[in-house]
Every structure is written in C-alpha cells, then in structure tokens.
C-alpha cells in the first residue's frame, strides 16, 4: 500500500443540512494513514453524520473531501468502497439469512448482473479473509447464527476484502463483552500497523485512551478540538464534549431514607440466580454490580414478574406479595426500565408522545376514549421535565438518538408514579451530557421518596449514585458495600467468579 506524504484524508468545510437545519458547520479534519483517530461528542454532536459523509451514506451540503491529495466526490457507499473507505456500523448491517461468505461479497461485485456467482472462489476468499483476522468463523455459516462480535468481524473482513484505506467504526464496542473488545482492539491495532487509517467513534473514554492516537471532539455540529490523546486528560475531554466541567454533574445528594419499600428473601430460579436476599428502603438508590451474565437482569425480571422466581419471598411495603406477571408488579407500584430498549422498551414507529403515554393510558383517558389533547399535554410536560431533545412530539421515536429514546422510556414509567423503580443499565450507550441529566433525575426521584434499584456495569456510575452497592457473581450475591466503603477494586474482586480466579 503506497502512503503518500501528507494526510490520507483531508476534509475542508464539510457541512450538512437536514431539511433546512444545519447539523454540521464546516468540518476541517485530517486523517493520517497508520493512525487511529477517535471521534468523540455527545449524541447529536454530528460525529455520526460526519462519518456517514465520509462513507458516502450522506452527501455533504458543501465542503470538499480530499483523498491522498485528490478531491473526490463520494456519492454512495459503493463509491466509498471503491475509493477504499468503509463504515462499520454499530449494529452490523448484514444479511441475516445469507452465509458469511455471501455477506462478504454480495453487492458491488465485479460479476455482471446475470453472471455466475463464483461460489467456490467466494468460499476460498472468505476463508482467507477470516483467517487473516485470526478469528474462527465458518464461512458457510448463516449470518444470523453468529454472535454480534463475530458479525462485526465479518464486517471488518469485508472492509479488508475491498482493500480499504480508511475504516470508520461507529461505536463498535457497545454490544461487545470485554473479551470480544480485546480481540477487536488487537485487530484494529494490526490494521493500523498495516498503514490504514482508522476512525473510532466511542463513548468510552478508557477505550479511546487504550486504543487511539488522536482525538477529535465534536460539539453541536462543530469540531471543537483535535489533539493527541496523551495531551488531554479525561476531564479535558469531557469538558470539551459538554462545554462545562464534569464536577457540576457528579454529586449525589444524600437523601434521607425511609421505611422498607421492597424486600426479597431467598429468591431462587434454577439456572439464573440462587438465594437472593436484600431490602430496599424508600428514598434509597441500591446499586447492583456484577459482570454480564451474573444474573442481575434475571433478578429484576423476577421482581417485575416477567420470569418469576421459583422460590423465595417478595415483600412490598412490608407485606408478602405474589408477583406472577408484570401487571401485578405495576399494580404494586413497580416500574422496570429494561436494558435493551429496542427489544423491550420502545414502539419504534409510533410517535414520541404515544410512546410516553403507553404505560399509563388512564392519564390520557376521557371515559373510554383517548383524549389527544391530554396525550399532547402529558407528553409535552414529560418531554420538558426530562429535556428530551426532538423535532416534534409527533416524530417516530425511532428517529431520536439513543439517549433521548431512553429518556422517553423513563418518562413513560414515571407517568405511572412508581414507588419502586428498577433501572437496568439505564445509561448504556449514552453520552456524558445526557448521562449527567439522568443522574440528576435519578437523584431527584430518590429524593421524592421513591426506591430505586439500579443495575449497572458502569462502576463510576454506581459509586456516584448508589447509597449501597450489592455485587452479584454467577447468580449469587457475593458482597454488599456501603457508599463509603465501596471502591472499584473491591467491587471487581467480588464480581469475578471465584472458580475462575
């Protein structure tokens, strides 16, 4: 691969408007071969839009892109691929029913439309590409049978098939486990050493620090700063992203805690969790830490009645209660905001306001009818209180950014005026600014005397918000810390399975 002197990619004054609203205001950025360049910014800061322009998904409203010194027009993803630019989407954009080999080569082949598909050559080439990544994936496997991580590897292999010079990864680590992330990083470093340019979009500062050379921060459609990663502290980066210091956000008001709101004793469901006992008081935020697969979500689902426990007791406000299905839980004032909002939370094609009012039809009812005026007002109130950023309350919720979708889901459950709120990874995939708003909101809810059970894999988040922290490992409670005694190391000690340690 020939590396010309000067940056591989130069953008000058790249701007983009959607329906008359400018979301990118003239971006000048240089990307060098053999370098991993992080793009950071809050949701809606414009980094994904910029990435999509480079990859030919969007066309810039104005501005110029130079590739190896030559001005290019990237009109479509296919042209981008021919020029050696590939975007790897967060959720792999693949063909679930086709084989890995086909996923690698379908579209943009040299074959004529009515030409023969070279099955054998495709299989061999696929095997070669996958071997080159050092992962073991069967090229004949059907894509939908693969893990998300493996699907991502296939996407990366596809980029390599096209002999890509610039690979853009949009939040590739969000759906991955730590081990998968490590594998991904090894591969990304290898791509870098081969002289390719890599753009890495992430919300996780520790990942950026571990992997990237340069960092560029976007805010509100502007490029705020580009610098070597080593020149900036985490606080610097956060300040650049949100425009004010993090300390403003991260403080926990000590809420006075009241009577016991929820208590579980000896909760057991075979294969998921064993002998779980704890109590949660009004006004308290109880954190639950643990590795993925420790059974935390299963406990939450049991309390909410989705998959009830086989043994054990649940007490609400001191009296023993049977929760056989979610309806019982809602009746007892429990709300559950699930981890995977796409699957368990939102009605993607429905407008935001209907999504918000979905859990509490009685708040917008007039007799047997839905009152559109009340629906509008109720939703507008919630949108305002949680500062959900959107174009219109009638917009399909699927168009909002992840953080704002999450806020809408929270708004929905708050309408039911829950006394016990179970939040499962509420800030996963959400950027720092929105996270801070979430923290404020959680504090406020606890301050109102509500009990909050907060499941989170983000240890700083737990340490910031929780009054007490429980740790689960392999389906059992392994530790409980007060706010004062907890620290990251102690929690991890308790979270890592003993047998493996």
């Amino acid at each position, binding site marked *: 691969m020939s590396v010309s002197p000067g940056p591989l990619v130069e953008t000058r004054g790249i701007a983009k408007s959607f329906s008359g609203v400018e979301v990118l205001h003239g971006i000048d950025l240089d990307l060098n071969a053999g370098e991993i360049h992080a793009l950071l910014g809050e949701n809606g800061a414009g980094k994904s839009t910029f990435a999509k322009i480079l990859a030919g*998904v969007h066309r810039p409203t104005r501005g110029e892109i130079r590739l190896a010194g030559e001005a290019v027009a990237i009109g*479509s*993803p*296919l042209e981008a*691929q021919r020029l050696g630019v590939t975007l790897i989407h967060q959720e792999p*954009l*693949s*063909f*679930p*029913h*086709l*084989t890995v080999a*086909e996923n690698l080569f*379908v*579209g*943009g*082949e040299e*074959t*004529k*439309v*009515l*030409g*023969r*598909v070279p*099955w054998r050559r495709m299989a061999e080439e696929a095997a070669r590409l996958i071997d080159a990544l050092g992962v073991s994936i*069967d090229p*004949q*496997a*059907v894509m*939908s*049978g693969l893990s998300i991580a493996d699907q991502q590897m296939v996407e990366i292999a596809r980029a390599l098939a096209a002999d890509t010079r610039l690979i853009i990864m949009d939040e590739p680590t969000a759906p991955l486990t730590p081990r998968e992330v490590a594998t991904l990083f090894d591969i990304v470093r290898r791509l870098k050493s081969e002289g390719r340019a890599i753009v890495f979009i992430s919300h996780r500062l520790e990942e950026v620090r571990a992997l990237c050379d340069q960092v560029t921060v976007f805010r509100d459609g502007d490029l705020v700063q580009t610098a070597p990663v080593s020149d900036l502290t985490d606080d610097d980066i956060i300040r650049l992203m949100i425009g004010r210091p993090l300390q403003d956000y991260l403080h926990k008001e000590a809420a006075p805690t009241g009577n016991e709101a929820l208590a579980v004793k000896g909760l057991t469901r075979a294969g998921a969790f064993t002998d779980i006992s704890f109590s949660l008081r009004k006004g308290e935020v109880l954190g639950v830490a643990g590795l993925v697969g420790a059974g935390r979500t299963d406990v939450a689902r049991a309390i909410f009645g989705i998959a009830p426990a086989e043994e054990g007791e649940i007490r609400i406000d001191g009296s023993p209660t049977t929760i056989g299905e979610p309806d019982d839980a809602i009746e007892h004032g429990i709300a559950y905001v699930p981890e995977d909002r796409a699957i368990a939370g939102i009605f993607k094609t429905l407008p935001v306001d209907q999504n918000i009012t979905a859990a509490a039809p009685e708040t917008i009812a007039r007799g047997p009818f839905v009152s559109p005026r009340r629906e509008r007002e109720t939703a507008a109130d919630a949108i305002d209180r949680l500062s959900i950023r959107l174009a219109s309350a009638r917009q399909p919720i699927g168009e909002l950014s992840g953080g704002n979708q999450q806020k809408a889901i929270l708004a929905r459950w708050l309408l039911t005026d829950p006394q016990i709120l179970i939040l499962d990874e509420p800030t996963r995939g959400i950027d720092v600014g929105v996270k801070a708003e979430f923290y404020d909101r959680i504090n406020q809810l606890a301050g109102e005397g509500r009990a909050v059970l907060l499941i989170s894999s983000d240890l700083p988040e737990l340490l910031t918000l929780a009054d007490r922290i429980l740790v689960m490992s392999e389906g059992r409670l392994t530790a409980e810390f007060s706010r004062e005694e907890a620290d990251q190391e102690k929690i991890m000690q308790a979270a890592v399975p003993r047998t493996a340690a």
Partner: protein
Amino acid sequence: MTALSRLARAREAGLVVMLVILFVVVGAIQPRFLTVGTLDIILLAIPLILVAAMGQMMVIVARHVDLSIGSILGFASIAVGMMFRDVPELPLWLGFVLGIAIGAALGFVNGLIVALFGLPAIIVTLGTLSLYRGLIFILSGGRQVDPNHIPEALIRMAQTSPFGIPWIVIIAFATALLAYVFLRHMRLGREIYAAGSNPDAARLRGIRVNRVTLVVFSISGAMAGLAGLMYAARFGYVNPGITGVGFELTVIAAVVIGGVSINGGIGSVPGVVLGVLLLGSVSVALPILGISGFWQDAIYGAIIVIALIVDGSVRAGGLVRLVTGRGE
C-alpha cells in the same frame, strides 16, 4: 452445517416425508391412488401452479407478494386466445412469446408502482388484481374464447410429447430448473435474497433494490403469462370470469408450504417444487377419497395455516420445546 441451513434441509426432508405419508395413507384407504394413472393426473395438475410458484417465490423472497397473478394469467390467456381466434395463422411459439411478454409487462407495472411509490405490494397487487380482471372483461367484451378457436397444437401440448410426458409438464419442470440456476448461481438471483433479507443493508451495499423489485414482479408476471398459455392448452377455452380466479391463493399456499418465509430472505426452489407436488397430490387425493369438492378450499386453507404454524414454531424453537419438553 449451520442451524439455518439444517432447518432448510429439514424443511425439504419434512416435505418428502409428508408426501410419503400422504401416499401411504391414501393408498391404504384407496389402493387405486397408487397407480401410474394417478401420477399422470398429479403431474397434469401442477404445471400451472409450478411455473407461477417460481415467480411468486422470488417476489416473496424479496419481501413482497403478488396477489395479481390470477388476473395476469387471465389477461394473458384471453389476449393471446383472441389473437389465435382472429389471426389463425399466428405461430404457436409467437403465442407463447406474446403471452409471456404481456404477463411480464403487467408484472412490471406492479413492480413499478411498488418501487416508485414505496407502497406495500399486498395493497398494490390487490388493486391490480381487480384492475387487470376488469381489463379482461373490457378487452374481451365479456365473451370467452371457445375451444374451436384454441389451436389444436396448443391443446396437444397438454396431452403428449415425443417423450411421453405432456409438453406443459416438461416446460414446467424446465422452468423450475431455470429458476434454480437463476436464484442459486446468478448474481441477480442472490441479490433477490439479499434485498429480502435486509433491504437497508442491500441499499448500502450498492444493490439496486428497486431494480430487484422490478425484476421479481416482471418475472412473476411473465410466469403467470406462461401459465395462461398452459391454461388454454389444458382446458381448451379461456373465460374472462373464470380463468385464473383464485389462482393466487393456491400458488401462495404452495410457496409457503414449500418453506419460503413470508418475511423474505429465505426459500429454495427444491422446497417450492415439493410444496407444489404436495398440494397437487392433495388435490388429486381428495376426490379419489370421495371427499367433496366443497371441502377442498377448506382443506387447502387448513394446510396453509398448519404450514405457517409449523414454520413459525420451528423458527422460534417452540416446536422443539413442545416435542422435547425442554427449554431453549
């Protein structure tokens, strides 16, 4: 082999098993069913369904559906039948070419409306189902093309050939073979699967999804046109109010029974051929068992629903749980 392809194979194997069971059970009740004569009847019952099913499966794999094929069949057969009536010297091959071309044109119109306006195919083709049927009446003035106007040579195609099997049966299986090669080995064929599996990804990969839509509807129309000629050959007349009415249901049933996913992206030609054979065999078995024609539609419907339930449960793992009593 992976879970999904194993599932696909299982589907084809399952259809073979169901065919065998059908023959054993019906043969046990009525030994007359197990004669060569029955095989002839079955083979003659399926050519129309088979060719149309090849087109329909492509449409369904691409995440659409074509409800208008019965009317396209009717239109093509009426139009070509009238040409044979008015121009008796019209060569037979040209009749086939015209029938296929008329069908393809009507199918193209379906595809164009679906692609251009981004409308759901089920609604568009529901509209053209009526539209094309209406045009049949306008074109023919409501009069049928009588047997004496259908060329002898065409009618003979449904009866014989130098190989002992009627021509239309040979044409039908040859069409299936072509469809297999197209869907399995040609780039455009694979793009149909890609577009049906994930249209957004297909677009981003530079696959022209609209072209795929036009192609599948045109092929579906062309196949319905070909089936129109076969109809004229087999029944010896073409009637504006009868020919092709309800045909789409039988064809879609066969395609679904053959394992094509109504959600797109999945389906194989061998599976659909087996689906057609199964449906054809059932249609022949029912009268032999002395079950009245009144029952036929109900039984067809039941088979479709059962096929969908089996399909859905297999994919969701529900059937496995049901059978083995184990969790996922």
